[in-house]
């Protein structure tokens, strides 16, 4: 019978001339790929255990290791691809749901790669961001319909008061929900500190707020998910904003189970559950079966925080996303987070991750349009999430209508992640998606913070260049300004849904 034991995605090439037998690779690999052959005292490797995270390759002092894709192929077949065959073999052996990590890796059309930005030429001047002020500042929350000057007593009321209850972002990029549990405390610290230093926000995910992260709570968006883990009045009052998590791009519509063996003492403290017990997040919130019920939870939170903090709702981008978003505005939310099909996760069934939901580009366009059509766009901020790889993806998302974006995977890549998609095993060699103290020590939070700040700085500079090129000096003027976008290689219906013209069409 076929045995999955023999299946390996990667092969490890070890240059024996270069290998100095220091055994560093043997010591570091959490997957026990490398071992010392006692008989020959050579260092050898078991390819079948390799996840392709490249930690040993990066660490090898003599560059003796190269990780390659396993060239062994099944007979070429466009339908019965290798991964499907091997998945069936695994399931035939275990009878279980196949898990995966990170975002959808299917080659669905990536609309960011089919959208081009404009630039100013002759008829309006471009702006040099090196010499002229450029504004990336963004406010998240419900904007008032109008300011009645007659009602304003300028001595006691200031614009600051009117704007209170909004989140103020120096860059329109926030760190997406990644719980302590899905990632290590060192990774959480790096992200939280970076958010504080860069004037943006981080998100606790549904794992509660660890005590050592309290100093960053004023920059934290705390999540309330169906399991209500770690949710208390104190949790709500410490935070800058609250996000009700209905769904997630990587696993729309399904719940989650944090297996008991991963509920360590520290995790049990933040989630407020017993150590070793399964943490089950039901698929729906059982107090939310309708938009009216959602309104009830939004206002229960607002009552608890004295209406002083924005309350948002996070949903996965699904087919009916526009009307749902409209309902969320009418339910009283201050911001809506939409997570596209490429949104990441620590663990999700691969069939769900790869087959459920719609791309974020399309979701932003249809939600922004729907809310504009209904005259309620000002009542809510749209935060987009789901696979932003570069600053140009973000600029395009904002031009399609998002107020700000969440980044998760790209932040983790800045911390060392090589997107091997094995987060769910808890054996992350980079010290990110693991709770093993031997592994988490590899992630230095101070260095991590610096790298994240560098990333945000680099993307800010790039975004300012792109803005200046379009002759625009504030991100606010680009928001929903779809005339600045042109589609390439897109059908008429795609252009219509995205609300953009095809390349070559002028204003």
């Amino acid at each position: 019978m076929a045995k999955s034991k023999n299946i390996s995605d990667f092969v490890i090439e070890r240059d024996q001339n270069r290998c100095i037998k220091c055994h560093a690779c043997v010591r570091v690999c959490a997957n026990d790929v490398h071992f010392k052959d006692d008989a020959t005292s050579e260092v050898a490797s078991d390819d079948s255990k390799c996840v392709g995270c490249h930690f040993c390759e990066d660490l090898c002092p003599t560059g003796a290791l190269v990780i390659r894709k396993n060239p062994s192929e099944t007979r070429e077949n466009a339908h019965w691809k290798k991964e499907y065959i091997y998945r069936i073999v695994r399931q035939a052996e275990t009878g279980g749901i196949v898990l995966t990590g990170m975002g959808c890796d299917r080659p669905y059309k990536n609309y960011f790669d089919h959208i081009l930005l404009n630039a100013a030429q002759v008829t309006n001047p471009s702006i040099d961001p090196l010499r002229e002020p450029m504004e990336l500042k963004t406010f998240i929350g419900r904007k008032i319909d109008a300011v009645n000057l007659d009602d304003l007593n300028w001595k006691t009321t200031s614009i600051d008061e009117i704007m209170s209850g909004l989140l103020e972002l120096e860059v329109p990029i926030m760190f997406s929900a990644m719980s302590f549990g899905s990632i290590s405390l060192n990774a959480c610290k790096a992200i939280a500190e970076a958010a504080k230093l860069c004037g943006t926000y981080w998100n606790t995910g549904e794992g509660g707020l660890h005590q050592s992260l309290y100093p960053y709570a004023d920059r934290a968006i705390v999540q309330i998910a169906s399991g209500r883990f770690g949710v208390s009045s104190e949790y709500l009052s410490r935070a800058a904003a609250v996000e009700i998590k209905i769904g997630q791009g990587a696993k729309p519509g399904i719940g989650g189970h944090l297996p008991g063996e991963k509920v360590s003492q520290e995790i049990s403290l933040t989630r407020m559950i017993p150590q070793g017990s399964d943490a089950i997040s039901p698929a729906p919130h059982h107090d939310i079966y309708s938009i009216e019920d959602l309104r009830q939870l939004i206002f229960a939170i607002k009552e608890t925080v004295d209406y002083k903090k924005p309350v948002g709702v996070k949903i996965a981008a699904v087919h009916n996303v526009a009307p749902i978003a409209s309902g969320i505005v009418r339910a009283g939310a201050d911001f809506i987070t939409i997570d596209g099909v490429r949104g990441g996760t620590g663990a999700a069934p691969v069939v769900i991750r790869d087959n459920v939901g719609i791309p974020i580009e399309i979701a932003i366009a249809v939600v922004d349009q729907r809310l504009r059509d209904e005259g309620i766009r000002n009542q809510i901020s749209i935060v987009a999430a789901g696979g932003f790889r570069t600053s140009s993806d973000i600029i395009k998302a904002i031009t399609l209508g998002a107020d700000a974006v969440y980044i998760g995977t790209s932040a983790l890549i800045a911390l060392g992640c090589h997107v091997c998609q094995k987060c769910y095993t808890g054996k992350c060699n980079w010290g990110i998606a693991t709770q093993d103290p031997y592994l988490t020590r590899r992630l230095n939070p101070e260095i991590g913070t610096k790298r994240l700040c560098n990333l945000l700085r680099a993307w800010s500079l790039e975004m300012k260049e792109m803005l200046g090129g379009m002759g625009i000096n504030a991100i606010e003027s680009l928001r929903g300004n779809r005339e600045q976008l042109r589609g390439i290689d897109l059908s008429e219906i795609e252009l219509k849904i995205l609300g953009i013209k095809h390349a070559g069409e002028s204003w």
Partner: protein
Amino acid sequence: MVEIDAGGMYYRLLNEKIKALARSGCKEITVRNVCGQRYIGAGFDFKDLRINLYGTPGNDLGVFINGTEILVNGNVQDGTGNTMNSGRIVVYGDAGDITGHSMRGGEIFIKGNVGYRTGIHMKEYKDMRPVMVIGGTAGEFLGEYMAGGMIIILGLNGGNLIGNYAGTGMHGGTIYIRGKTPDVIFGKEIKIFDLEEKDYKTIMPYLERFANYFDCSLEKIYETKFRKIVPVTHRPYGKIYSY
């Protein structure tokens, strides 16, 4: 003691008034003519405050509450004690659906019946152990996903003790029912046992309090034997994944 007349008052104003009084150090607040106002006591952590409500408070009474005692002279609607951390809610009437949803600590005493999904996803943590005592009957999906704490159903006024699907997905805590095992469909994840001496010791203080609050006879409660519903495993879904 301070009194508020809630008649015709918008919930936000009522809650503002109650909160202002609590913050000023008031220890007992009585609210009369309550009629559907939601979120009363939301997130309160005033440890030695007592709120007496007369009438019918609206949904999410005592949501996120962390301390504070709420006594209701009337019925309550849905979501009473939602995600409650500590404190006590005593209802001299019936309660609606999802009473004690995701409750982590504190106590809820209901004189009458409760609706569907009561005690759903109740959980315990360290020394926090939520307790709910229901004098009457409970609807379907009692203790669904229950992960800790205890629910006691007394069925003192007759009727069907519990509905179908009790204990579905249950992986912690205990549901005590008074009387014979009802002829309903239970969740797959539970087993039912007779009580041992130590179980009676566990529930006794709560039954005593129940009898005190609602002025009923403890002897009468003990006349009928109890049974308990407990989960088979703390890991109901441990084996559904392939790693």
